[in-house]
């Protein structure tokens, strides 16, 4: 398949009909396996763009496609499956279901996506083994795996979230400011672990931050205000 991983063309998005335009992007392409650093000031629409890429929000106009599939062209239930099959997502914080065990949190995508459960099983023998491999890769000791996720520190929880995003080798991992709740040393080691893991898994990484210190370690850097033609309007609004 020659289609780009992510393909955006003439995207326009506003939150409400009456609100000012939030995003207006002529073109954006992300290739398979690429590690992209997306940055810009708070409120410039970074999270909104990620929701659009993941097919949770739909653009009012233009094309937003993942693996050649335009999100707007498929019905909601297929959107959910497409997302579950191909996207791993990491939030800023509170990524986990605190009452579930660490390993069960990592396994959650395999419950919703048969494709990712299969991919994990093919690589590691079983989805559970896959979860454990990713937890180990993220530097989490086996004695933590059965603990409720809510017991872990914020830094540990972010690494569990990364393991969850990577299980079953989704084509793209989307990380929405995953380091902002971490202190400086942990930020660096988290970014290192995440980049290595995505490379190992063959997943593309779209990493959003307003702090551009780790930017140099990515394949490509994109300043959202530079490609968003609605940015000037938003800034003055």
């Amino acid at each position, binding site marked *: 398949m020659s289609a780009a991983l992510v393909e955006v063309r003439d995207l326009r998005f506003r939150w409400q009909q009456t609100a000012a335009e939030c995003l207006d992007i002529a073109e954006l392409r992300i290739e398979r396996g690429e590690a992209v650093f997306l940055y810009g000031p708070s409120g410039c629409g970074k999270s909104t763009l990620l929701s659009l890429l993941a097919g949770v929000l739909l653009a009012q106009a233009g094309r937003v496609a993942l693996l050649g599939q335009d999100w707007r062209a498929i019905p909601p239930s297929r959107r959910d499956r497409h997302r579950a*099959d191909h996207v791993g997502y990491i*939030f800023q914080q509170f990524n986990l*279901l605190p009452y579930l065990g660490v390993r069960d949190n990592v396994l959650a995508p395999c419950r919703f996506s048969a494709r990712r459960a299969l991919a994990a099983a093919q690589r590691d023998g079983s989805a559970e083994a896959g979860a454990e491999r990713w937890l180990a890769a993220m530097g989490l000791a086996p004695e933590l795996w059965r603990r409720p996720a809510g017991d872990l520190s914020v830094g540990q929880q972010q690494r569990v979230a990364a393991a969850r995003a990577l299980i079953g080798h989704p084509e793209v991992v989307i990380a929405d400011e995953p380091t902002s709740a971490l202190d400086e040393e942990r930020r660096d080691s988290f970014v290192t672990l995440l980049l290595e893991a995505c490379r190992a898994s063959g997943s593309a990484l779209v990493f959003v931050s307003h702090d551009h210190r780790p930017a140099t370690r990515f394949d490509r850097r994109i300043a959202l205000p530079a490609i968003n033609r609605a940015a000037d309007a938003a800034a003055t609004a």
Partner: protein
Amino acid sequence: MTRFLFDVAWRSAWNRRFTLALTVCSIALSTFMLLGMERVRTDVRASFTSAVSGTDLLVGARSSPVQLLLYAVFHIGAATNNMRWSSIEALRERPEVKWVLPLSLGDSHRGFPVLGTTREYFELFHYGEQQPLRIAQGRAFDGLLEAVLGAEVAESLGYGVGRKIVLAHGTGELVTAEHGDKPFTVVGILGRTGTPVDRTVHISLQAMEALHVDWIGGAPLPGLHVPAEALTGRQLQPKAVTAALVGLHNRAAVFSVQRQVNEFRAEPLMAVLPGVALDELWTVIGTGERALLLMSALVAAVSLAGLVSVVLASLNERRRELAVLRATGAGPRHIVLLLALEGFGVTVAGMLLGIVALAVAVAASAAWLQSSYGLVLQLASPTDTQWLLLVALLAAGWLASLIPGWRAYRLSLADGLSPRV
């Protein structure tokens, strides 16, 4: 995936167990109220209709069926006319008639009605599911001035066998004079029946006659005092009674005997089927019962509104949780399923708790209710109406939980993956 959702639903609910426990309790309370009201309603009706059984016809002077039922069975009110003893004898001669129990009313003891009847009453009278009377202490009356008390009379007045009692002329507020010259001895006490029998003092027809031998028109005749000792020799055969209970050899003959009684030549009489008269009376006093049902429906509605508001309120703190589920691949339908599952579970748990609480309450208070209110509650399996109420409650509780589910669905669509909380 379904197992995973069940697991998530259970663990998430357990995580919020204190809030949910309140909802479960409020549903338990409304289940308790609804089923309890229905239980009381059914059992009030049951103890009402169990007042007489095995009797095929009530016979009395012509009046209304309900009036005849009230005085002949419930010993409330008074007959407008008596029926002659010769009519009783005529009834007994009918080939279809198996037995006739003459009843004579009009006196009382400290508010409890006095019933004059024959000794066979204790064998022939049946109540409830064809249960005969049981003499708990002592024996049936034999001599003239002997009385057998209903269970409640003995209990509330603290009487035992051997006690002397004085009967009064008239009933209720209209007690005009006491038969102080002819005291009775309590010789027996009946077992509890949950029927008007419990509130009745039983004496023989001859004793009833003896009490009034020196009376005319409701007052003692001045100058004519007949002492108790002189009575045995006199003719104590009653000339009239108030009513009679009739049993037939074959129930199929009931309508023909009824017609014969209604067309009786010697005096105007009336025969009534007890079941028909009971139904007629119940339609009059059944209105209050429907008000009870309405009340409990309101209670149920209020507690369901509580369920919705608790789930809605907790929804805000759960937005993050739902977004996490969405991010790991759950669709909006999974979110709705999750909330519906929780609503269903909470409703069922509440209902089970309510049923258990009701069973415990009935078991614990049955004795007290019977002695204080004469209400016999049974730990029986649910009635049809109770099943209906349970199903309705379950459906309503579950539907109520879908309101938050619908809102969560909307929220999860609007929030996307980054809820603004």
